[in-house]
C-alpha cells in the first residue's frame, strides 16, 4: 500500500520504527495546520516558525514514545506544551494586542466588505480572551476538532470541554454586543 493512502496513525507507527519517509508525509500533512494554529495563538510569525520547527524536532526525537492513539491529539499535545513553555518564557499570562502582527486587515476578502467590521470585532475579541479560552475556541471552531479529541489533548473529559466552549461562546457574544 502507498504511504499516501495510509492514515496518520499508520504512518506514525511506521515512523516510530524508523521509516523517515513516513515521518516526512506526516510533516507535510500537519505543518501548515500547526504553524497557523501557533500563529493565531501567538500573533508572531517568526516565533511561530521556531515553535513549529521545535514541534517537529520533538516528534522526531520522541517518535518511539508514540504508543498508538489518535495522532492529531498527540501532535497537538506536543504543540500545546511547547506553546505554554514559550508563554512562560515570555512571562505572559494573556496574549493580546497582537492583532497588528497577525494582519487580519490584509487577509480578509475585500468582496465581503459588509461583514468586515463584524469579523474584525470578533478577531479583536478573540485576541482579548485568556490563552486557555482562545486555544479552546480555535481548536473547536477554527480547527474543527471534536470535544473528544480536545479532551484527550487537554487531559480533560468531553462534557467539561463542551461546557467551557459554551461559556466562551456566550462571552464572545456578550463582548460583541458591547462593541456594537
Amino acid at each position, binding site marked *: 500500500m502507498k504511504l499516501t493512502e495510509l492514515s496518520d496513525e499508520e504512518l506514525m507507527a511506521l515512523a516510530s520504527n524508523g521509516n523517515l519517509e513516513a515521518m516526512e508525509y506526516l510533516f507535510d500533512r500537519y505543518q501548515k495546520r500547526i504553524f497557523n494554529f501557533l500563529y493565531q495563538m501567538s500573533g508572531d510569525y517568526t516565533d511561530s516558525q521556531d515553535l*513549529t520547527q521545535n514541534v517537529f524536532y520533538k516528534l522526531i526525537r520522541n517518535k518511539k514514545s508514540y504508543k498508538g492513539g489518535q495522532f492529531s491529539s498527540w501532535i497537538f499535545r506536543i504543540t500545546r506544551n511547547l506553546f505554554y513553555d514559550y508563554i512562560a518564557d515570555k512571562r505572559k499570562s494573556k496574549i493580546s494586542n497582537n492583532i497588528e502582527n497577525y494582519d487580519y486587515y490584509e487577509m480578509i476578502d475585500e468582496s465581503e466588505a459588509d461583514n468586515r467590521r463584524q469579523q474584525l470585532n470578533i478577531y479583536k475579541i478573540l485576541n482579548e480572551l485568556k490563552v486557555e479560552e482562545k486555544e479552546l475556541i*480555535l481548536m473547536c471552531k477554527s480547527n474543527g476538532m471534536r470535544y473528544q479529541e480536545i479532551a484527550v489533548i487537554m487531559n480533560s473529559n468531553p462534557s467539561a470541554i463542551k461546557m467551557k466552549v459554551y461559556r466562551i461562546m456566550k462571552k464572545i457574544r456578550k463582548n460583541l454586543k458591547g462593541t456594537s
Partner: protein
Amino acid sequence: MNCKQSEKWISEFYESQLSNQQAEQLKKHLNGCKDCSGLFDDYDMIINSLSSLPNVESPKEIKSSFLHELNRPKVIDLKPTEPKRRSSKIQALQIAASFVLFFMIGFFAKDLMNDNRIENYISELKTENETLKNNMVLALLENQSPSMRIKAIDIYEKNDVRNDEIIKVLLDKMNNDSNDNVRMAAIKSISKFISFSEIKKEFIQQLKKEKNPNIQILIIEALSNIKEIEIINAMKYLKNRQDVEEYVKVEANRTLKSII
C-alpha cells in the same frame, strides 16, 4: 420549548448533536421567538468568522530544517568533563558492549539463518558496533597516557571510513598534543584523507608554524602527492625560512621539483 432549552440546542446544533426531530422543534421555536432567532444569527456569524480565519503559507525554512534534522545521523555525545576518570570507565563499558554485540550477532546468525530480516539485523548491529568503536577511540584519545592515545590512533587507522568527529580530534592532536610521537601518529593516520580541502588546509597551516623538523618532514611527505599552487607556495615559504633545518629544506625542494 422554552428559551433556555432553545439556547442549549442552538449550541448543540453546531456540533451536529441534535436529532432531526430536535432540529425541527428548534426551528419552530426560532420562527416564533425574536430573541432566540437573534441568538442563532449571532452564533452563526461568530462560528462562520472563526471557521474562516485566514490561513497563511508557512515559511519554507520549516521544511528544510525538518529534513535536515530528520536525516541527521544519531550522534552519541560522550565528551567527558573529566577525561582521565570518565574515559577509563566508558572505555571498559564500551569494550564489554562490543563483546556482547559480537556474541549476539553470532547467536542470532545461527538461529535465524533462514530469516530474511537477519541481514538487516546484522547490519544494524554492525552500525551500532561501529559507533561504539568510534566512541571508544574518542575516549582513548583523551587518555592521559601518550601510549594509550597512540593505541587509539592505531585502532582508528584500521578503519577506512572517514569519521568527521574523530578527524577533528586527530587534527587537534596533530597541532597541540604535548607528545611528539602522538602528533606524528595523528599525522600518519589522517594523511590518507589529505585530498579533502579542510584537512589539506590544516596541514599547510601547521607546516608553516611547525618547529619540529621530524614533523615538518612528515607533513611535507603527506602533501607531496598533491600538485597544487598552495603546496608550491608552502614549500617555497619553508625553503626561505632561516630557522628550518637544512635537511628539511632539501625535502621541501624535492617535493617542489616533483610538483613542477
